[in-house]
């Protein structure tokens, strides 16, 4: 067996493949109706994250900061945070405020649970809910920050409620278009649901006047409160560690049955999603969706020979990486290098059996950076990269074409519109992959053949 699994041990991180924890914490709040976020720490953190998100979603991203300065750092930032909360309430009148910590606040030992509890006591007329989350930047990547925040929101907002008919759908960091597609499938199947979080409208809003500071849409707080009484939870978080799992929290606290499945990208993963829906609701998979499946199969057949020439590097957040790797595998693209900046115990274990079957040299690396990803890609003669924009240097430096997928996409428009889930989304994703392989092949084919078979044989030495 030729498989290799490498751990990357060097101390320097050279061109990061991931971002920091509080970045992941912003997104869940953006998917709740009427909510705002404030980051407790120095101004820079929130500005960077706003910039990254604004470029990816092409939407204004208002995130506050307690703007900790030297004094606040020495004597504690409580006053700054409280002033910040007050100002945000005044200007935005939010229904919910997420308070995320940064490296700085954590290092000086700020207890946001206590500070926000005090703030609530001091303002008894406060209608906004406040959810504090400790998300030190050095505590993990945006991936862990995202799920930790989801869990924290559930901890703070859910209350025991009567059983009802809805299914909780907990989504990872996928595109607004993906969320919308999942909602469409649920509607077609006539399944009552609560999508959590739902930033499909808030981070991909239609042009409208007048401008709203907090966009419409998002999971309602009332629905979140009642997630405790749902029929079941479907969570697309197969790679998430148990202690970060919001679905597991609902199961343990309220006894809600949990189906923890991969993101429905690829034929098999979408099958799993639909069968899960069907088994929970007792409803048949409708004809229109069966047809979409048939169309995906047709697409897979159309492109299978081209895909067989694909040697891919796949990088990004573990959940996305897993979904894409599976989709590649079922389409004959060989995932030569599978990489993530996160630390995850599940990715390797989940991929191992599939990769062993393939019996090809495939590397899975975690807690890694782009210097490693780049050298492995070269070593394995990769001809297709799939991941976020920070991999653009693979194209610039090694000529490996990049299909942009995941977050952040900051050097192209339309990150918010990329559709990759369900049978339809998978079809679109697969076309993007195959066409990139084809484009690359056609671009290089004349020179390549000329060099290989003409130049070498007829010109050298003549």
């Amino acid at each position, binding site marked *: 067996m030729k498989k290799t699994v490498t751990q990357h041990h060097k101390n320097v991180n050279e061109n990061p493949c991931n971002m920091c924890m509080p970045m992941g914490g912003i997104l869940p709040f953006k998917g709740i109706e009427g909510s705002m976020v*404030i980051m407790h720490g120095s101004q820079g953190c929130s500005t960077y994250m706003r910039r990254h998100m604004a470029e990816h979603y092409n939407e204004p991203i208002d995130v506050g900061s307690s703007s900790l300065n030297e004094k606040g750092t020495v004597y504690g930032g409580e006053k700054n945070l409280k002033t910040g909360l*007050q100002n945000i309430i005044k200007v935005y009148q939010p229904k919910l405020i997420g308070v995320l910590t940064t490296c700085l606040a954590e290092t000086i030992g700020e207890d946001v649970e206590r500070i926000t509890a005090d703030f609530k006591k001091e303002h008894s007329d406060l209608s906004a809910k406040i959810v504090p989350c400790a998300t030190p930047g050095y505590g993990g990547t945006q991936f862990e920050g995202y799920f930790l925040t989801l869990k924290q929101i559930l901890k703070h907002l859910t209350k025991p409620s009567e059983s009802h008919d809805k299914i909780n759908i907990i989504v990872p960091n996928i595109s607004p278009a993906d969320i919308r597609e999942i909602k469409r499938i649920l509607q077609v199947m006539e399944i009552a649901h609560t999508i959590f979080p739902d930033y499909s409208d808030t981070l991909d809003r239609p042009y409208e006047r007048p401008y709203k500071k907090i966009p419409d849409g998002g999971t309602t707080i009332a629905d979140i409160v009642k997630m405790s009484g749902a029929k079941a939870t479907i969570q697309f978080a197969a790679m998430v560690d148990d202690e970060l799992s919001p679905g597991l929290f609902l199961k343990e606290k309220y006894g809600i049955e949990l189906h923890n499945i991969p993101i429905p990208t690829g034929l098999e993963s979408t099958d799993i999603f639909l069968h899960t829906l069907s088994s929970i609701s007792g409803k048949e998979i409708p004809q229109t969706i069966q047809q979409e499946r048939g169309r995906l199969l047709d697409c897979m057949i159309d492109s299978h020979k081209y895909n067989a020439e694909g040697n891919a590097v796949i990088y990004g957040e573990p959940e996305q990486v897993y979904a894409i790797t599976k989709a590649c595998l079922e389409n004959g693209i060989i995932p030569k290098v599978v990489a993530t900046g996160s630390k995850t115990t599940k990715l390797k274990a989940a991929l191992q059996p599939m990769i062993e079957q393939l019996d090809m040299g495939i590397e899975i690396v975690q807690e890694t950076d782009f210097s490693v990803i780049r050298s492995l890609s070269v070593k394995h003669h990769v001809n297709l990269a799939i991941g976020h924009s920070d991999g653009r240097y693979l194209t610039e430096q090694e000529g490996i074409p990049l299909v942009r997928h995941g977050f952040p996409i900051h050097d192209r428009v339309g990150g918010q519109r990329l559709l990759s889930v369900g049978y339809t989304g998978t079809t679109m994703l697969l076309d993007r992959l195959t066409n990139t392989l084809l484009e690359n092949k056609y671009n290089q084919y004349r020179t390549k053949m000329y060099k290989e078979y003409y130049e070498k044989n007829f010109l050298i030495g003549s």
Partner: protein
Amino acid sequence: MEQLALKDPKVIEERKEFISTKGAQKQQVKCDEDSVAGSISQRACVFCGARVVLNPITDAIHLVHGPIGCASYTWDIRGSLTSGSNHYRNSFSTDMKEKDVIFGGEKKLAIVIDELVEKYKPKLIFVYSTCIVGVIGDDLEAVCKKQAQKYNIEIIPVQSSGFIGNKSAGYRAACDALLRLIAPAPQEQLTNNGETSQPKEVKKKSKTINYLGDFNLAAEAWIIKNYLKEIGVEINVTFTGDSDYVSLKKAPEASLNIIQCAGSMTYLAKKMEEIYDIPFIHISFLGIEDTKESIRKIARFFNDPEIEQKAEQLIARELKTIESQLDWYKQKLQGTKAAIYVGGGFKAISLLKQFKELGVEVVMVGTQTGRKEEYQTISELATEGTVILDDANPTELEQFMTEKGADLLVGGVKERPLAYKLGLAFIDHNHDRKHPLSGFVGAVNFAKEVYSTVCSPVWKYV
């Protein structure tokens, strides 16, 4: 007009002094203060300020001592071009984790430097401190010194802890690092023979200048270099666009410093005057008037009729080539109202002038880090009724642009989606732009960009 702002419940109390209306108020806007907590400031942090100034130094290793996010968000942050090494386009981080925060990061920093020296054999490493480094008290100075001696290279700490001020403090930290870099090396280090002697004497070269505050975005420093070459003035070194270790070391030899970006470089110029007796003048190559005036100013400085004559020839020729193009744009842009919200005061001032040249009225102008003198100039240049504001937030931008009927906003990445959501045209004046805005060619590019956005057919439909 200012009454509206003051009465609006949505305007944060502490922000009022940072907003004024030309003509309506006697006193100037307040500036150069910490951001108000929770105000959604558009500002970045000290670290960011230092990084954007130093990053264009092409052959340096830029090592961020801190958690991963800071390095991730500022990777290749400027579209600075290079004629030599590409090293600056990497982002290195010590990737501090929880245990480094608890036990200190000095050891890891030293190991990371070891790894980097072994792999890249650099002449120069900048080590940037981030928020938590300042809090946990790692002795950057000591680690850098020890490692520099060990490898006999320069390792310069940049004191850029995020919370010690705003972006301007970061500019200053960068300038301090540059001052250390350009200080002539003691003889012993040059010859390596162990003898101690006085720093070598600086030999001045006549008619050579240092060009400060151009970061060679989209080849801008090269454009100016060509102009000056044509009139017989040699550029010694650019700070910091397309500069490197060797060229920066020669900085003290110049006979004049010219400063483009005043915010980031005035401090350095003053220091260089003090230490190396190099006089400085402020110039600007943004817009036709400023470009003309700046070329003349430089020519006059050298008091050489030949240079002055060549300068006039260059100006006449360039004006002739662009005149008709500009006239066409001017005509199309009649009646347009613009708003400006940019990083530094220098940029805002030159934009005010450029809009005047195009016959476009400016109705709002603000900056993130403008200084008192700059706001004075802005106020002089602005027309009656123009709103002037420091460290604004999305709410204020929205309010004043709407109130004043702006058709166009000039800003950075975070402001773009806001403008678009408000149905306004937008000009990117950010680090990452791909077309030069300096010099005569830049003036045409600017006009073209204004035209392409203001006169786009899309506005007919919204």
